[in-house]
């Protein structure tokens, strides 16, 4: 019985590994200096498509306008593709229309993570709005 269980566990691991899953190690144990407290909101959007947010960072880029980075983690067992779009808003909360805000695509293997990033179109941008949707597969 124990032997059968061990074999089943081994087989399950082998199958999962064969499906292209990735083992990821994180060395950072504390939030980075540029982390912003919007992880929960971003996570709410990402969990709808079976992904989760590791950390959300926002900081001024070398050129001046803000840069946003979101670590997207796939804790599921399947390879996931998704589309995302960053819209930038000014201090009044109005969306800044720009050619920078377009739908982009990304993929995360099982057990892996990826960082999606965007640069604000101008220094008037103070915050962002992130839209995500599952890619058709």
């Amino acid at each position, binding site marked *: 019985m124990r032997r059968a269980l061990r074999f089943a566990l081994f087989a399950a691991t082998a199958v999962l590994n064969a499906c292209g899953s990735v083992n990821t190690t994180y060395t950072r144990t504390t939030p980075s200096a540029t982390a912003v407290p919007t992880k929960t909101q971003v996570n709410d959007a990402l969990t709808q498509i079976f992904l989760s947010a590791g950390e959300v960072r926002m900081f001024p880029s070398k050129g001046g*306008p803000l840069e946003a980075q979101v670590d997207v983690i796939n804790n599921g067992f399947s390879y996931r593709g998704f589309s995302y779009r960053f819209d930038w808003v000014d201090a009044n909360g109005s969306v800044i229309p*720009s*050619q920078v805000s377009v739908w982009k695509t990304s993929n995360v293997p099982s057990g892996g993570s990826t960082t999606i990033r965007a640069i604000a*179109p101008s220094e008037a941008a103070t915050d962002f709005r992130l839209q995500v949707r599952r890619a058709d597969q």
Partner: protein
Amino acid sequence: MRFPAIRSVASLASLSIFVAVGCGSPAKYVETGSPESIVSVGDVDMQDILKASSGMLESLIETGILKTAQAKPAQLVIDKVVNDTSSQFDVGELLYRMREQLVNSGQATVITTFGANAEDKTAQEQLRAQAFRQGNAVDGMPSPDFSLSGKITQVKRQAGNTQQTTYTFRLTLTNIRSGVEAWTKTVDMTKQGTKNSVGF
């Protein structure tokens, strides 16, 4: 006995044609570049151009290279961007989107009356004549900070029925005063599949 059978087969065939025609999707508007767009395996799609333009703009803004220009805002001249792919599209689709963002946000201006490939020959002639009349043929002419040039290339591969195409958009900004490359960026787009599809 034979005729009713033929009649029923015929009516079944006409019914299936009717159903097939009725199930076709009617034309509708979709947001340009949205995930509802058509994805072509062996062609550059509109969403690819939008993504490339966005990636280029983000890099230009991120590095702050335009802020280093002598003129404020930076003065650009658009040189040749070559489409070296088998996909037919106008590179202006990429460049005009970038120009719109940079010019309308006050980060750069585009000089259309500079060089042998000037976009607006009439304005260039007018400017030259005006400068000549005023006796400052050199000072009266525009003096851009940067020249933008580039190339779009493709790498196609196939395994069985599956096709894969990588489109690479590359742009370079050259400092006209020093002749040195000031900024360069490549944006890759890889598409894989057996046939074109709707949505991504």
